[in-house]
């Protein structure tokens, strides 16, 4: 530790630091210690639930990776630092990871402010920041060390729009979206696509994450007399909106973004989410082998608990990290380069994931059209609700 620091201090230059990292890596390569990944994410604070879900996905993936012999015989491990999704803490964590030679790659952070504030440090420090939930369009523009498997909303939203407009035949839409960078970007892509498909956007309403009461918002929606409600929401707020929509007597078809896909959505929404349509990456009966393995493994490890989207993201992310480390070894630059080399990594979200080197994202997320029937996510049978 002090080895690299002393060197960097003398010159204070980044090149020296990188050299130091490479140097110390050589010494480490021989050891039987696990290959260490850094994770920066929320374990406390308002987004703590997502950090907890990440852990579940990571641990499941690691079990499988180790069962399959690990990374060329070495184990893979992660060091989870709590950032509370706060940029001030994520930058400190970034420095910590960058200057810790054991860390070969970083995963996270959760929110865009926390992730993107840390990006310059990872970029300059030459450590990959693998932001697997960062859908902000500018995230990967932070530099060539920023990679993401978060589904681009430019890809996802047209699929949702197609589901709503073309398949369900909705013509006049009310869009409710989380007023965050994600929700806003998603809304814009959705609106654009929906219009292209010939739908009219009657009203769009952005709400803040802490909002729980949507009754007045839904009166606005009602007055716009749409024939469908589009929810660009997470599962907790999505469930709240669906419940309240039914309570105030809105009977229109509801169509939601894939981010509501979670058993919690069913639990929190109860009867109100019956017949809600949603796009998703996978579904419980999905015959794809990677999905079966994930769902069954998850249920077995976590007492029958159903996995949700964030579990899947983190599970995939850990698998992707393993694939990258297999190619890139433990050299930080080689790892960066390995992202461009990995091909067809088995993935719950993408089926087979391969990075687009230009955008440093993965294209071609799987999409299934689901509907909630009898309290279960089921593949839509094409019948109107």
């Amino acid at each position: 530790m002090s080895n690299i620091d002393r060197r960097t201090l003398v010159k204070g230059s980044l090149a020296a630091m990188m050299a130091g990292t490479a140097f110390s890596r050589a010494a480490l390569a021989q050891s039987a210690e696990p290959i260490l990944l850094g994770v920066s994410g929320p374990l406390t604070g308002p987004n703590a639930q997502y950090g907890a879900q990440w852990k579940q996905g990571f641990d499941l993936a690691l079990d499988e990776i180790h069962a399959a012999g690990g990374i060329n015989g070495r184990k893979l491990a992660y060091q989870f630092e709590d950032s509370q999704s706060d940029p001030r803490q994520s930058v400190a964590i970034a420095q910590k990871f960058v200057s810790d030679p054991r860390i070969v790659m970083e995963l996270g952070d959760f929110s865009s402010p926390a992730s993107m504030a840390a990006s310059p440090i990872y970029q300059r420090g030459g450590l990959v920041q693998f932001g697997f939930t960062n859908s902000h369009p500018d995230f990967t523009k932070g530099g060539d060390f920023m990679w993401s498997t978060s589904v681009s909303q430019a890809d996802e939203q047209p699929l949702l729009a197609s589901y709503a407009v073309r398949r369900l035949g909705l013509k006049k839409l009310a869009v409710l979206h989380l007023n965050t960078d994600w929700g806003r970007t998603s809304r814009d892509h959705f609106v654009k696509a929906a219009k292209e498909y010939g739908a009219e956007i009657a009203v769009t309403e952005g709400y803040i994450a802490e909002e729980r009461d949507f009754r007045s918002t839904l009166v606005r929606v009602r007055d716009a007399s749409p024939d469908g409600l589009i929810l660009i929401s997470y599962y907790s707020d999505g469930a709240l909106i669906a419940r309240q929509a039914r309570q105030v007597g809105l009977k229109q078809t509801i169509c939601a973004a894939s981010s509501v896909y979670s058993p919690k959505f069913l639990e929190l929404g109860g009867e109100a989410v019956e017949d809600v349509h949603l796009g998703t990456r996978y579904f419980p009966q999905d015959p794809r082998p990677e999905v079966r393995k994930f769902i069954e493994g998850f249920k077995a490890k976590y007492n029958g608990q159903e996995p949700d989207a964030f579990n899947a993201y983190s599970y995939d992310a850990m698998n992707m990290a393993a694939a990258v480390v297999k190619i890139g070894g433990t050299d930080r630059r080689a790892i960066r380069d390995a992202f461009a080399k990995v091909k067809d990594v088995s993935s719950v979200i993408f089926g087979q994931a391969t990075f687009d080197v230009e955008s440093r994202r993965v294209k071609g997320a799987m999409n299934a059209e689901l509907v909630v029937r009898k309290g279960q996510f089921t593949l839509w049978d094409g019948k109107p609700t």
Partner: protein
Amino acid sequence: MSSWFDYTINGLIIGNVYALVAVGLALIFGVSRLINFAQGSIYLVGAYIGWVAVVRLHTPLPLTIIVVAAAAALVGLVIERFGLRPLQNSVRIAPLLATIGISFVLDQLVMLTFSPNPRALPSQLPDVRFQLGGGTIGPLDLLIAGVGITSALLLFVFLRYSKLGWAVRAASQDRDAAMQMGVDVNRVNQAVFGIAAALGGVSGMLVGMYYNQIDTAMSLQATLKGVVAEVVGGAGNVPGAVIGSLLLGLVESYGVAVFGTSYRNLFAFLLLVVVLVLRPNGLFISPRQAPPEPLTGTFIAPSRPLRIPRWALAVAGAIFAVLPLFPVSFYVLQTLINAWLLGMLALSLTLVAGTMGQVSLGHAALLAIGAYTSALLSLTLNVPVGLAIIGGGLMSAALGTLLISPSFRLRGHYVSIATLAIGEIVALVILNWESVTRGPIGISGIPPLTLFGYDLISPSSVYWFSLAVMVVLALLQGRLLTSHLGRSFRAIRDDDIAARAYGLSLNRYKSLAFIFGGFAAGVSGGIAAHLYSYINHETFNTQQSILALTVVILGGLGNVVGAIVGSVALVGLPEVFRIAAEYRILIYGIVLLLLVRFRPQGLLGTI
């Protein structure tokens, strides 16, 4: 027409929900003159106890209510006995800070026990809906309204006709005189906390059932809305709190109706500021005459500050200045950079809250103004980063002072509440003013720090830069404090009436304090923007304001060195506790409580 009816009904329904929290807050404020920031946490605890009762123990509703009320009351009693009673004779701000610390601890305990995942809390009432206007209401709406109104009525009857109720009222009006009538004031406090907590717990449970959802993030929101409703109605006034809550619900609902959903909270906080400006004591409390003589500061107690010799400061400064030359990790440097940035904010706040006595709870807004100004100047107008940061400081000084000026005529707690609201308003304007601030997308690609054409990107150079800026600001502030302005600020803090009688215009000097402090905060925000390269409306949030206030109180109000020491301590502590992972915020909360308990005048003392 029918839509307006629906908006009205919806406003009243959500108003009822707010009332459940506001009534408890009002009851406590009435007796203790304390805004209980832990009320939302009790609400949270109630919701989870309700979950245990309903989902695990399958209790019927009446029993659920009794269980939740009893358990929450117990929590309230514990808070009163161990958290607040020991602070009875310390500075008035100490209990306020203690309630903040208690809320940290409670929220974390719930999170650790139940995991942060949201849970469904099924309603135990039959799901029948009654048509009302264009919408429907269900039995829970009626139950919540019933509980709100019934508890307000019961409280009214209790206060008016029971012996203990009389004791509560007597104690709230004159503690000493009540004691002289044989009233055991500690008992009264306990009773009040017990009742308020029972009410808070039951309301958390009912609201959880109402939304079929409970999670650990519900606490702060509940507190914020409850405080707004309570202050609008007139702090300490129970029926006022109910009416304030309904009014808040209506204003929010109509705000949504007219301007759209994302403006909702903007209207809530605007309502609060407008009410405070027009009727500084809330709608239902008659304006009081000037506070009785002698008045020695609202929050400030006399204390002997710890004098640190100049040479010691110089030595400490020198050690920190040469630190990057030694083998310390970049992580340590980055942590200290965070401390220096927080230090600038704390300098700003210790000037306005400590030296000037305007305890601001919305100081993060000044960071945000500085950060956005600097980011936009450098991005869209290509202003060199160094100048852009100064521009951010100036904008924060000017705009921040202008925005906070409505609070200049307020005193004590009301200043804190008004600034809290103003801080929220700034964040919401940033969210909604998309043409300038890019709304929720935020500003990315902010150029890194540069100085005279040199990029400051290595941690050491950023460290030196931020340290230097902070030291310069600290020295300037030290100089300010020794000038006639420092004297004038402190005079206004100690006794604004006497200060006015000697020609000190409150507007002028409060403005000057905010201009100087706003500059420091704006510079801090500006540096942060260039350091992070990306900011949005959530980067500078209420938690930052609370953290800054904690730093200032810990360091000692008005104490320049204390602000810096406090910043290092409060940035450092959570990092030190990092090994404790999920437990670190809990530990932090406990450390905070202990500090408040044993050193309420701050580590270095009030100046």
